[in-house]
């Protein structure tokens, strides 16, 4: 039956063309559903019942009005325990008419119990979910900070305490540092756009190796820009490692999760960013002592080594000389054994002519030849007989 726009308002003012109850209920339902759609509604739970079927039936109210509503079991079971009576809630629902009873009611699919900042909390959950979904909180994104940066960017309010704290701590710790300050409002209506602009600017500043985003402490609302999706996405695009230092230690913002490091305060951020010169000077002094000791030790070892070398040389020469001595003795003995005197000792004699020539052949002993016989202890004159 298609009666939606065939029945005009004028037609209902006559008893000739009355509407049926069903027509009115269905028309009202269509108008309401088409006109309102799915909406978030904030209110207080005035009454709530869980039926055997598992469906929730509740009444939502504020200071002046109340509306009944229901949620199917399939949706309700996602939320665990139902909210208590009196709880402030956000309900995502389709306002409609339950035709059989002609009741105006909410057909809810989501219900969030809210605190005082319910709307903001809801918004934060959405931003968080979006950033998480895109991996901006992933640990794998985290980069290591440079060990000894020479130039860092600081994004903060130009007249805030955060900047003063950072400069003061930097002067105490690490004087070989250039700080590039990029001013940005950190609260108020313009904060988000200024922060995004500043974060984009960092990528164009030459020589910067680290970026600190800083803000002194404040109320939760004052820190809202550091939970902004746009600011978080711009922070994730910064090409150098980043530190988020927002508020006091108890405050946590989404920028803390997106940045490579989170510092509890701006002072802590600069302490994290730069080394302590005093510690490095200690390290250098310690190295100086070790160097002096080491070279002393090295020299001593070299001298000992030289001495050891001298000892070995002496030993080597002595050994060589002894060996030579033994060789000479041995050769002497050999020479001695070969001496003709040794032969004479055994009873041989050596005939020599007057001129000293050794007479070896019988033919050399001519008749009447005078010669000398060399025996072991002297010479004996001799003569060949004349026959």
């Amino acid at each position, binding site marked *: 039956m298609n009666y939606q726009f065939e029945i005009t308002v004028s037609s209902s003012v006559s008893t000739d063309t009355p509407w049926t109850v069903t027509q009115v209920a269905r028309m009202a339902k269509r108008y309401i559903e088409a006109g309102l759609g799915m909406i978030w509604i904030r209110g207080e739970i005035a009454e709530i019942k869980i039926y055997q079927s598992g469906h929730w039936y509740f009444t939502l109210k504020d200071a002046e009005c109340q509306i009944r509503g229901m949620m199917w079991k399939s949706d309700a079971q996602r939320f665990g325990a139902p909210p208590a009576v009196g709880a402030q809630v956000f309900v995502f629902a389709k306002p409609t008419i339950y035709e059989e009873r002609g009741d105006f009611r909410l057909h809810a699919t989501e219900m969030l119990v809210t605190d005082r900042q319910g709307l903001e909390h809801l918004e934060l959950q959405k931003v968080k979910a979006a950033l998480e979904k895109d991996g901006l909180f992933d640990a794998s994104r985290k980069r290591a900070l440079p060990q*000894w940066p020479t130039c860092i960017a600081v994004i903060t309010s130009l007249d805030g305490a955060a900047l003063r704290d950072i400069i003061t701590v930097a002067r105490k710790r690490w004087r070989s540092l250039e700080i590039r300050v990029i001013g940005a409002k950190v609260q108020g209506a313009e904060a988000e756009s200024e922060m995004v602009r500043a974060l984009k600017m960092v990528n164009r500043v030459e020589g910067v190796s680290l970026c600190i985003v800083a803000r002194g402490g404040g109320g939760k609302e004052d820190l809202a820009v550091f939970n902004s999706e746009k600011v978080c996405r711009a922070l994730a695009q910064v090409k150098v490692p980043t530190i988020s230092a927002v508020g006091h230690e108890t405050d946590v913002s989404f920028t803390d999760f997106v940045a490579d490091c989170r510092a509890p305060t701006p002072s802590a951020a600069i302490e994290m960013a730069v080394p302590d010169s005093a510690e490095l000077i200690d390290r250098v002094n310690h190295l100086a002592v070790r160097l002096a000791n080491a*070279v002393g030790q090295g020299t001593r070892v070299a001298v000992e080594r030289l001495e050891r070398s001298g000892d070995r040389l002496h030993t080597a020469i002595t050994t060589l000389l002894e060996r030579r001595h033994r060789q000479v003795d041995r050769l002497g003995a050999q020479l001695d054994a070969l001496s003709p005197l040794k032969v004479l000792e055994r009873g041989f004699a050596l005939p020599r002519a007057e001129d000293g020539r050794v007479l070896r052949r019988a033919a050399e002993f001519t008749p009447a030849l005078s010669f000398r016989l060399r025996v072991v202890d002297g010479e004996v004159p001799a003569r060949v007989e004349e026959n």
Partner: protein
Amino acid sequence: MGEEDRGEETPTLAEDLRRLEEIVRRLESNDGDLDQALALFEEGIARLRSARARLSGAEVRVRKVVADARGSLRMDDLDGEQ
């Protein structure tokens, strides 16, 4: 992450300290001859002087980054800072 990957840090101070550690280690291990030990010692002294000068001489400089109407960046002194 190695020191080579750390990008923009003071390369000379990092190099001075790294080399100093190496020199001290080598001298402490007693390998090498006397001439080499003395040469290492002299280099170590030079590195020490250089590192000390770098650690004690500088002063923090604070500059404000400002974008002009065309979007070009320039550095200004920060109010109240040198």
